[in-house]
């Protein structure tokens, strides 16, 4: 019989393809990647949102002028505006301040519109005046000094550098991030655990074949590589399925978030780099599965044989 005329397909020494645990592993990884992708998109969105907040807030502060308590509304408005002008004078004379701009009546009306509705004339209302202050890029403002100078000029002025508000939001966002990262860690642990136990079960099933391979001179690495390769392929397939379900889910959540009024969640957007990380999750799951299977086999064989 000629060698050239016979086609001989090489069969895997360990029949891992027909393993009953394969489907279980694929489903586990698909679920893990789905949860991983959705949670990660949340974490990355929160990060980008915090970054936006930081960038917009670090270079600005707000000076609030409390309204005069005069019963005559016209006089009260005139007094309040006089206090605002004094504060503006102080602010414009400070060297690190680029611009101090009082909000117009229209802008103030827009601010209170969600609470009081349309058609409100703010001249009739005892509401504070707001001065939006832009700080020069890279400049460092001594807030205590600024507050002191404003207090000297007018007792009705107060400074809000947004830090208190921002810190509370950062704390809230950090809490969500820790929760999300805990979920991610849990997902990785559950997936690795599933791979660990399915690999151990499979090693038990194929003990006879592995013994023969050892007797033929196979190192543990030879067996481990076959398991690692199989696990990597299964995890990649499962991961792609999980990702295929996760992407429309992320878009769905994003769409719902954008419908929430206030614009805070609307700033939570994923960059191209963030998407690259999410799309790379099946490959990441595949590597985790490969390494888990490889070291499980090495460790188990040393213990069993």
């Amino acid at each position: 019989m000629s060698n050239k005329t016979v086609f001989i397909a090489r069969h895997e020494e360990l029949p891992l393809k027909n393993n009953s645990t394969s489907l279980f592993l694929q489903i586990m990884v698909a679920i893990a990647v789905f949860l991983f992708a959705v949670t990660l998109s949340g974490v990355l969105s929160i990060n980008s949102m915090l970054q936006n907040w930081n960038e917009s807030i670090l270079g600005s502060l707000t000076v609030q002028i409390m309204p005069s308590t005069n019963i005559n509304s016209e006089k009260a408005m005139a007094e309040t505006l006089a206090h605002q002008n004094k504060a503006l004078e102080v602010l414009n004379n400070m060297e690190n301040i680029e611009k101090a701009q009082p909000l117009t009546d229209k802008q103030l009306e827009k601010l209170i519109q969600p609470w009081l509705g349309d058609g409100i004339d703010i001249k009739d209302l005892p509401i504070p005046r707001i001065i939006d202050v832009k700080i020069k890029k890279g400049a460092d403002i001594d807030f205590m000094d600024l507050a002191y100078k404003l207090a000297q000029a007018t007792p009705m002025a107060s400074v809000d550098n947004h830090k208190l508000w921002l810190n509370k939001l950062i704390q809230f966002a950090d809490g969500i991030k820790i929760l999300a990262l805990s979920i991610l860690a849990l997902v990785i642990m559950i997936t690795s655990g599933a791979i660990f136990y399915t690999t151990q079960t499979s090693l038990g099933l194929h003990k006879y074949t592995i013994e023969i391979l050892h007797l033929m001179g196979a190192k543990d690495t030879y067996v481990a590589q076959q398991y690692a390769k199989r696990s990597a392929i299964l995890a990649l397939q499962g991961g792609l399925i999980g990702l295929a379900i996760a992407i429309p889910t992320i878009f769905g959540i994003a769409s719902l978030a954008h419908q929430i009024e206030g614009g805070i969640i609307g700033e939570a957007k994923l960059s191209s780099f963030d998407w690259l990380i999410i799309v790379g999750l099946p490959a990441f799951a595949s590597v985790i599965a490969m390494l888990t299977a490889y070291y499980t086999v090495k460790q188990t064989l040393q213990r069993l044989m």
Partner: protein
Amino acid sequence: MLSSTNKPTSIIEMQNVGIRYGQGPEILSDIKLSLRKGSFHFLTGRSGAGKTSLLSMMYLAQKPSRGTVSVFGQNVNFANRDALALLRRKIGVVFQDFRLIDHLSAFDNVALPLRVCGMDEREVRKRVMELLQWVELERSIQATPATLSGGEKQRVAIARAVINRPELLLADEPTGNVDNDIAPKLMKLFVELNKLGTTVVIATHSEKLISDFAYPRLHLQNHGLKIFAPNNSAELGGRHV
């Protein structure tokens, strides 16, 4: 036999070796043995005398309960798993129960020792095809063990044992299941390998085989090992054989 002053290159060296399973009595006690490179021996003894246990120590599937075993000059008591794997690649084994992998074809079973060494697949194919033709199994290359007869399985097992041209060949009843016309051919293969330098140990019950071939005999009796010259002529006193 060589004198102790002119110590030969030993393939296997055993010093005061004992084997026991669990807390049971020793199956083999105080075995002292030194197998010279290129030697040919029959291993005999009654059923349960410990032939398979002695062979399993030689092919490194088992470590001794006491004493030391050196294979190819390496003390296996302290060898790590990778080192043992490399030593096993120099050893061909024909198991009494064949130990073929059921889901693999005859071709893939014979190719195993070459593939675990990472040999190029074209060379694997060439060598396996040649050997399967030699053992007259060229028509069964794709057959799985379940579809082969006892004799055919044994020929596959023998082909697998010799495919990597081992330095040490261990066979447990290698001609027990083959037809009368095939048995001499297989023995001729072992003899030819021995002439090329392979050390051979064959465990057998066949008096015919022992009488047809003039090789010394390692005989297990009363948990110990005695060495006889060819055709039972005399017990050899030394342990270098």
